[in-house]
């Protein structure tokens, strides 16, 4: 076994002095076994391990060991051993219900790839359009956000969400799970919902709002699932039945292999979506969930998790307490509703995901629980719990090393690994900062 090596040595492995990260090569596959020693391991599922050791090989964590246990290494391996000197190791954060990779510049239509034409396009799959060279990915990564669940948006059935990791040469490299489930924008009653906001924050009332427009629109969603079921029955009996990609796209949800993600915020919206899913024998996840605490019993009884899209938002109504958005996660936790926290808003701000959780923690949510809400709980709710979200043997080595807790602004992320590959933490931002600091160095004549 090699003796102690510093972090700096490891950094030297990467190519130096290159422009923005989008121009940088992606990380090479993990060759050497890596042993992180003397670390404070925030395993999320297995508590805090002080002075612990974490081993990963071929992109997968092979051991999480307490302080005194000797690391078990694969036969014949020459591991890279790093003494972290008490630094923190966290599983990578996951930006749920995001637009990462699909949108580059919010207002530039040409760079916007998340909204397909038509009311129902469940056949569209997010990962297909993710740009591996998006400048947004390295920026999110640099703050410990190492995976994301991009969501198509628009219409009643915008498409299917994917789970991606934020480093890879190709879309295949990025893919953690291509199809994590279809999205439905569950319509609000006339006058409700959230209009004019970007990203999958919750469905608005239909534009052609009459008193019953929301019911008609809900019926159209239901019709899509009914048609898919009829098609599946026919196709199973007669394989020559023509294929409709829309129907095909809903089959895994139909078979309960994946959940349906319902964008819903208002109480009536949430309740009706849950009842609809119950009656159609679908697994449901509520995305948005502003009023979820008001129907906690129903959500608990039906085992429906809630994706809270953004803690940093305004109260939805004038009369609500100023901290209503900040306290929602704590409230859901107390009521026994399974939940996770998504960044909400524009993809370029997804790097601020830890701060949404940090605010929830400041307003009562247990700090470890808050971190789980942006890692393990996201993975569980989106069906990638076998790969991401915690530090445990068998999970992907998608993790980072930091000198403090990522909820703290003073914390620096020092190393990050995506499936065992050490990724560059530089980005367009760091390189532009460096470039222009050089300008002032020149001006000062140094």
């Amino acid at each position, binding site marked *: 076994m090699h003796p102690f090596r510093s972090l700096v040595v490891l950094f030297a492995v990467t190519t130096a002095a290159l422009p923005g990260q989008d121009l940088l090569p992606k990380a090479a596959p993990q060759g050497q076994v890596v042993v992180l020693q003397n670390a404070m391991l925030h395993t999320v599922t297995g508590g805090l391990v002080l002075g612990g050791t974490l081993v990963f090989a071929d992109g997968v964590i092979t051991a999480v060991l307490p302080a005194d246990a000797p690391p078990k290494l694969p036969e014949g391996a020459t591991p890279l051993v790093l003494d972290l000197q008490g630094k923190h190791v966290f599983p990578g954060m996951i930006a749920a219900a995001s637009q990462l990779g699909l949108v580059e510049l919010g*207002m530039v239509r040409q760079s916007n790839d998340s909204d397909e034409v038509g009311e129902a396009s469940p056949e569209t799959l997010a990962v297909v359009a993710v740009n591996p060279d998006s400048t947004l990915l390295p920026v999110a990564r640099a703050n410990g956000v190492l995976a994301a669940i991009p969501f198509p948006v628009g219409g009643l059935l915008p498409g299917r969400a994917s789970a991606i990791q934020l480093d890879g040469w190709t879309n295949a490299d990025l893919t953690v799970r291509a199809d994590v489930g279809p999205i439905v924008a569950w319509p609000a009653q006339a*006058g409700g919902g959230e209009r004019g906001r970007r990203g999958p924050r919750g469905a608005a009332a239909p534009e052609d709002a009459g*008193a019953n427009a929301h019911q008609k629109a809900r019926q159209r969603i239901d019709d899509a699932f009914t048609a898919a079921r009829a098609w599946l029955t026919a196709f199973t009996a007669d394989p020559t039945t023509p294929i409709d990609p829309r129907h095909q796209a809903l089959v895994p949800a139909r078979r309960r292999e994946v959940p349906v993600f319902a964008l819903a915020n208002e109480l009536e919206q949430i309740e009706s979506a849950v009842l609809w899913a119950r009656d159609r024998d679908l697994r449901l996840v509520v995305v948005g969930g502003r009023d979820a605490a008001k129907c906690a019993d129903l959500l608990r009884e039906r085992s429906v998790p809630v994706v809270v899209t953004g803690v940093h938002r305004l109260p939805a109504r004038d*009369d609500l307490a100023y901290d209503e958005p900040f306290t929602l996660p704590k409230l859901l936790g107390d009521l026994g509703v399974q939940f996770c926290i998504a960044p909400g808003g524009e993809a370029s*701000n997804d790097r601020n995901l830890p701060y949404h959780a940090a605010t929830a923690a400041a307003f009562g949510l247990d700090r470890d629980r808050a971190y789980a809400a942006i890692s393990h709980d996201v993975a569980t709710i989106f069906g990638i719990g076998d790969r991401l979200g915690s530090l445990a043997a068998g999970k992907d080595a998608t993790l980072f090393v930091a000198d403090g807790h990522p909820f703290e602004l003073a914390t620096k992320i020092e190393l990050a690994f995506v499936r065992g590959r050490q990724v560059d933490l530089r980005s367009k931002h760091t390189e532009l900062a460096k470039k222009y600091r050089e300008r002032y160095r020149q001006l000062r004549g140094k």
Partner: protein
Amino acid sequence: MTFRAALLFVAVVASLPAQGPPHNGPQPVDAGWFALVNARVVTAPGAAPEAVTIVVRDGRIAAVGTDAPPAGATAIDCTGLVVWPGFVEPFYASDVPALDPNTTDQHWNTMVQAQRHALDGALVATADREALRALGFTTVAVAPSGGVLKGTAAVVLLDEPTPERKPRVVRHTAYAAASLQTSRDGYPDSEMGAIALLRQTLLDGRWYERCQRALAADATLRAKAPQPSAALQAVADQQSLPLWFDVQDELQALRTLRIAAEAERAAVVVGSGMEFRRIDALAAAKARVVLPLHFPDAPDVATENAAERVSLRQLQSWEQAPTASKRLLDAGIPIAWTTARLRDRKDFAKNVREAIACGVSPTQALAALTTVPAEWLGIADHCGTIATGKLANFVVTHGELFTPKCEVREVWVGGVRQVVQAAKDRGLDGSWSWLTGFPGTTPATAPAIAITGDKVTVQVGDAKLEVSGVVRDATSLACRLAGKELGDGPFWLRVWRNDAALAGTLTATDGSSRPFRASAATVADGPKDQAKASDEPKNPAPDLGPLPTPLGGYGDVALPAVQSFAIVGCTLWTSDGRGVLRDGALVARDGKIVFAGPRGEMPSLREGTLEINGRGKHVTPGLIDCHSHTGISRGVNEGGQAVTAEVRIEDVLDPDDVNWYRQLAGGVTLVNQLHGSANAIGGQSRTTKNRFGVAVPDAMHLDGAPAGMKWALGENPRRANGSGPNPRYPNTRMGVEALLRDRLAAAIAYRREQAGYEALAPAARARVLPPRRDLELEALAEIVAGTRRVHCHSYRQDEIFMLCGLAKEHGFKIGTFQHVLEGYKVADAIAQNAVGASAFSDWWAFKLEVQDAIPENGAILHEAGVVVSFNSDSNEHARRLNTEAGKAVKYGGVAPHEALCFVTRNPAIQLGIFDRTGSLTAGKDADVVLWSADPLEYEARCEATWVDGRPLFTLARDAEKRANVRRERQRLVQKALAAGKGRTAKEGDKKDAYWAAEDMTQDYCCRDCEGGR
């Protein structure tokens, strides 16, 4: 005033007019000579009813007294009736054809329609005339609708016009009608734009008149005379007239009164009915309010979801609306009532009774309908009371006015009797037994007839006959009856009173008829009274106690008092040269910080000082948001033109926005309220303290703060992101530069012209034409003079560099570059040419021009010696400016104390108010925030915020407010459910005008609108 104008303003009602086309046949003669006898007469509000005779001749009152009526007068017997002065409707909006915008004479802006006159329009619609008379109105002031200056109003009688005779005019020109209406297709598209247009036009009218005078005195000046303008002539001519503002809410009322005061014009506000929400401010502004007796419908709370969407403020507004008159009168604000804004004028009488039930005295009520509007309209010599010489305008009632049983029988309009409702023979009402005429009936099986007003039921055994077509007049009743009990086909029934019985005829459709007789049944007629009573307000009058300011969940009945307080043992983030002091103490008194320093040096506390244990806590100066669009009514942008330096954010402060309170809960005590970035030269900004809850909105403005103005570079003024259909200059960054350069040159020329005139001796001034005061150039000139700071929206380095050069060339310093996301590329230029840079901490990639934005921007600028602030540009981000500042530590390694200064000291320097706030330094305003932890970290919660020493946010007060919101909502939702019977709005329902107006004033969300960034 010109002679022409003077002629127009006199009251012109004479007697019956002789003008008009020749009559088709012999000229009819109306003697017009009456005596109303045997009446009780109330001659004026507050007067006791007197048994006097009123003699009317030629439309006017010839005598009021006990003398015997003159022999020539036709006596009108008014036994059992009461005669009151005819009511005056002070505001009736009427369509008057818009002026042709293509004619040379018109104002350049179609919202200025000053030369229109009500008499050019359709006056009062037929149905409205009848409805108004039915309520007792005899006189109406008609105002043209549409526009900012809409034209002049005329007072006319509610005559029934005939081809030969038009409605008689009481006063040709009573007032100038104005509003803050915005344009649908250009300038002004915001309320502040409408205000600027109004101010400028009123100034132009004065200037035009001065020019005319100078020209009259010296014809040689003609070469430079202003272009003749009917519009400006009209404005000039109307200067002696009061301005009547048709407003949408109480804040507009205050704004229009400020405009009138500036123009030295008398003003009347035609209100929304919600004026009670800003009663102290309106009283201070000496408002005169024409109050619509329109009470909004109960908010829709039929379902849980619907109730959720209704705010406490809406519920309170609904509940309190009937108290408006009482509250205004108690505050010394004179009111007149109008039927304008009512969906159905029939509700007016009921609403008057509701206002009276809330405490308005009948005398006050009558005055609000007669003498007050008559005085405001300048027609008190003609209308308002019953006195010799005045117009013979009366309301004749059966029963006392303002009581449920009062019936308006007739009105007299300028001596013309108009019957509203003939006396009904109450003798028909009751329960009767049908004795003869019914086929096959015996006294034992006689059908029962019940008559209540127009309601008739006929009961035969267990069956009811079908009754339709009921017509009642003074003495008889007719209806149709059908039913198998009656035999074939329908029958016509006519009945009248015959001593103690009813008599009449029953006629079959074949024309055969038989007599009908019915005798009184012995059933008590109790239900009749109940039916009548159901029309009346059931709920007890709402509580008349003081209301919170602002109305809604988070206002206070009384603003928290200035506290003497000390926070002892805390960590003090001084934001001055002393950095962070552990174990510090802060003492504040009379709204000022008297000590901030090490605990050991704290002076002994005076008695009554609230001592707060600060151990483990952190204390910072109040946070300052250098880029805010919080609390701006009806338009953050005036986007109608590329240059709008004349519009002022201070004109449209919205003190009711709940975001003020939310930001207090995030420690924000002061903001730079900015115009949006839709145009290269936007409006004037305002430095505003977060004094949420003050009675007078303008008290939120920080007096004496340096003036500012918003400019904008790049995509937004280019309208590159698709806002606005028409091609408008500028469309490139080149054009933006050229436009700024052009306007600066114009500003310099303007200054020179104004200074040249000022320098003239008074005698010399009389020999030149006065220069025109131009609000746009005046504000721009202040920039060139260095007395107004430019806060310039900017992103890319090229545009920042351009403006640095332009400012330098013109000898002024930029106040701040706002956003300035590529500032890090040209920090040296910014350091030299601007007071500072005010950026987002880490926003990027939301549009093309911010693709190079980096979070190290603040740090690099700071390193280069630029005074840097971080701002919100968002109601949401504004709640956590402290952690935005923390990002300067994270990205770029700014020292924590310096980072906090990004939201305290530095924005104060940028706004030129660091001598007053922005640091914890003795002598400064007690704008102080108490935090639970290191304020640069997310774990910190704001526990208390003092503004000028007032604890406007504390956790304890917040808990009380939440409890109160729950309690009040519950009470009012229950009340609304009872009142609205669970009403749900149906598709196509016309929204109550009041609620529709509220919808329009919803929060402006600048974050998601590119125009706002």
